């Protein structure tokens, strides 16, 4: 591998599958595996690349952390985020690794999962783990909604993540069970009603092309499944 042009490996990690997009200069090669041990598959696959791991929303939990003027230091921010996670998800959130963005959206993953991913990259190995990020981050940074308010919809197997982004910040984020893509229209309508009168009727959908609810303006990401998570991280870098 050239140090000037290192290979990049983008990994889409789900509880029961893993997809790889290997990028060298302009060439992209892809592979997908359904497996009970995706971490083991990741360990076997990495060689000497710079690796970005994109986590499925089935491995990540989200929360909106309201702004608090009394909180100033990073430690206090972490404590505030932890407080909200405990309030929403209970005691199990005590051991989660949390990250809080400047726009008040926080995410949490199991610390064992993060450690297991890190252990795929021994200190003496040539592969380097450069990023572990939730799909929501990769998709949003690829999407770049700008000044418009819209729903970001991430579709996965039996699950959908609906997040309402606005220029003022994140208004809501929900990770919901979904039996089939046809349920999405109903789900969007319901979440829009919950968000209030001013909620937009616009959505950007990653991971599928379900029918749009009546009166809604829906855009679809061209990133193909099952690589859409990894490809959204590739695209967000460009």
């Amino acid at each position, binding site marked *: 591998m050239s140090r000037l042009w290192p290979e990049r490996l983008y990994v889409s990690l789900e509880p029961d599958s893993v997809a790889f997009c290997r990028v060298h200069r302009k060439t992209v090669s892809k592979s997908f595996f359904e497996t009970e041990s995706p971490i083991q598959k990741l360990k076997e696959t990495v060689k000497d690349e710079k690796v970005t791991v994109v986590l499925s929303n089935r491995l990540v939990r989200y929360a909106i952390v309201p702004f608090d003027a009394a909180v100033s230091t990073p430690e206090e921010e972490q404590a505030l985020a932890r407080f909200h996670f405990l309030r929403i998800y209970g005691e199990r959130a005590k051991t989660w*690794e949390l990250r809080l*963005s*400047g*726009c008040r*959206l*926080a995410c949490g993953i199991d610390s064992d999962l993060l450690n297991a991913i890190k252990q795929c990259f021994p200190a003496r190995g040539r592969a380097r783990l450069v*990023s572990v*990020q939730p799909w929501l981050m990769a998709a949003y940074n690829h999407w770049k909604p700008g000044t418009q308010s819209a729903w970001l919809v991430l579709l996965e197997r039996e699950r959908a993540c609906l997040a309402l982004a606005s220029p003022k910040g994140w208004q809501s984020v929900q990770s919901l069970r979904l039996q089939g893509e046809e349920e999405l229209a109903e789900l969007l309508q319901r979440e829009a009603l919950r968000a209030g009168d001013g909620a937009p009727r616009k959505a950007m959908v990653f991971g599928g092309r379900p029918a749009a609810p009546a009166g809604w303006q829906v855009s679809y990401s061209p990133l193909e499944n099952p690589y859409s998570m990894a490809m959204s991280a590739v695209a967000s870098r460009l």
Partner: protein
Amino acid sequence: MRLELDYIAAPRRSHVLGVGVLVLSIVVAVLVLERYRNIKLEIAQIEAAESMLPVERKPIPRKNLDGELKNAEAVMRQLALPWKEMVGAVEGAARPEIAVLQMQPDAQLRQLRLTAEAPNEKAMLDYLARLADSPALAEVYIASHQVLLEDPRRPLQFTVLARLKGLP
């Protein structure tokens, strides 16, 4: 605005500072380049102007100057010799039996030294007399003479010294 929730990479910093530094660097580089070009142009102009000025002579050291003066004086004296009269006197005194071997005018001593060969003493003295009659020469005398014994004709080789008239 980017969403930063990465567990490994640090949040990306704003590019504004980096872009500002880049722009500033480019501006400074352009100014430095412009200054460099101006200086180069000035140097070229100064060099061109210098090449049009008369070349400044290096001062000659005093010691060399004296030597140069002596040489110049010697050359001037040599040039000032009355070559025409001198050669006329030698040619006027010439005889077939007399062979002129060497003619050495000395401007500093105002003297002419002639080395010649004659078949006998009479011919030598006749030649001396003819030289003495020349209006360009005075005080003509034989400085030395010898018989060349190795030559079967036993010629007489002699040296004549004469003062050159008309020299300061």
